[in-house]
């Protein structure tokens, strides 16, 4: 918990355990989307119904956003990846011994969550500039306009920071909680907390998705 298997590629630090579990989560998402989208038809069969209901969840969440359909790929891949990554912490992958650290959820590494938060930052900035030009951050030469410009600059730091730390800290706190319960009594006591962590996994993926939608929506919407 909290420790990582540090390696080097050239002069870059690499957390191997995070990398391995991240690729497993990515493989889950890729296989799931591949399996669910075989044999698409006008008259849906069982797998297509599941795929359509998952997609309808994302389009429904994006209903209030201008040109919402356009943002489904980012939103859906973020949600599904974070969900699988969080849920992987409850698999008994920790039985596999590593040199350092352990195989847990990749989202307990702040580098992982910070990377996703920075992707969200560049995504909503890009769409804001594309939609409104320089007026995405510049609101004209007035006192309130200049104050708002500095607030926008501040938000570029605080939004990805809070996105990254919220996800990272929730997952890490969950692992610490389960570990404390294991050290109190390893039989049966951790089970309710692990069930709670499954709920937290869904909740945090949902929160990350909803905040991304809120940021993108505020970037592309017309000014009042």
């Amino acid at each position: 918990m909290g420790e990582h298997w540090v390696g080097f590629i050239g002069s870059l630090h690499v957390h191997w355990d995070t990398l391995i579990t991240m690729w497993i989560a990515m493989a889950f998402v890729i296989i799931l989307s591949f399996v669910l989208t075989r044999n698409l038809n006008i008259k849906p069969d069982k797998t297509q119904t599941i795929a359509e209901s998952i997609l309808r969840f994302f389009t429904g969440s994006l209903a209030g956003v201008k040109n919402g359909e356009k943002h489904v790929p980012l939103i859906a891949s973020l949600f599904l990846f974070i969900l699988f990554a969080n849920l992987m912490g409850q698999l008994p992958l920790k039985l596999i011994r590593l040199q350092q650290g352990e195989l847990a959820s990749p989202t307990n590494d702040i580098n992982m969550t910070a990377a996703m938060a920075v992707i969200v930052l560049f995504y909503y900035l890009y769409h804001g500039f594309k939609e409104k030009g320089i007026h995405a951050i510049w609101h004209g030469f007035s006192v309130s306009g200049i104050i708002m410009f500095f607030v926008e600059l501040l938000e570029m730091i605080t939004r990805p920071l809070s996105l990254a730390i919220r996800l990272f800290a929730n997952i890490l706190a969950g692992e610490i909680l389960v570990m404390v319960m294991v050290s109190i009594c390893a039989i049966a006591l951790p089970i309710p907390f692990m069930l709670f962590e499954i709920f937290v996994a869904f909740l945090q993926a949902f929160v990350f998705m909803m905040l991304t939608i809120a940021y993108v929506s505020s970037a592309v919407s017309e000014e009042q």
Partner: protein
Amino acid sequence: MEETKTISDLMYIGAGLAVGLAAMGAGIGLGIATKGFMEGAARQPELIDNLQSKFILGAALAEACGIYGLLVALILFFMR
């Protein structure tokens, strides 16, 4: 030597204060959110589905503030 020992002792107090105060704020926030949800649900039961997802989102955001305090406490504990 004596001075560093005092500082590390103070860090334990700081870690306890960080998690305690953060939990206090998060608890108050969660309480207010739950109160608002309950009042809204009692007045207009047909809106419960709509309110519930927003309540869960707000509750998760409030809870995250408590977890920031836990994070600071852990940093004080393990990065001495």
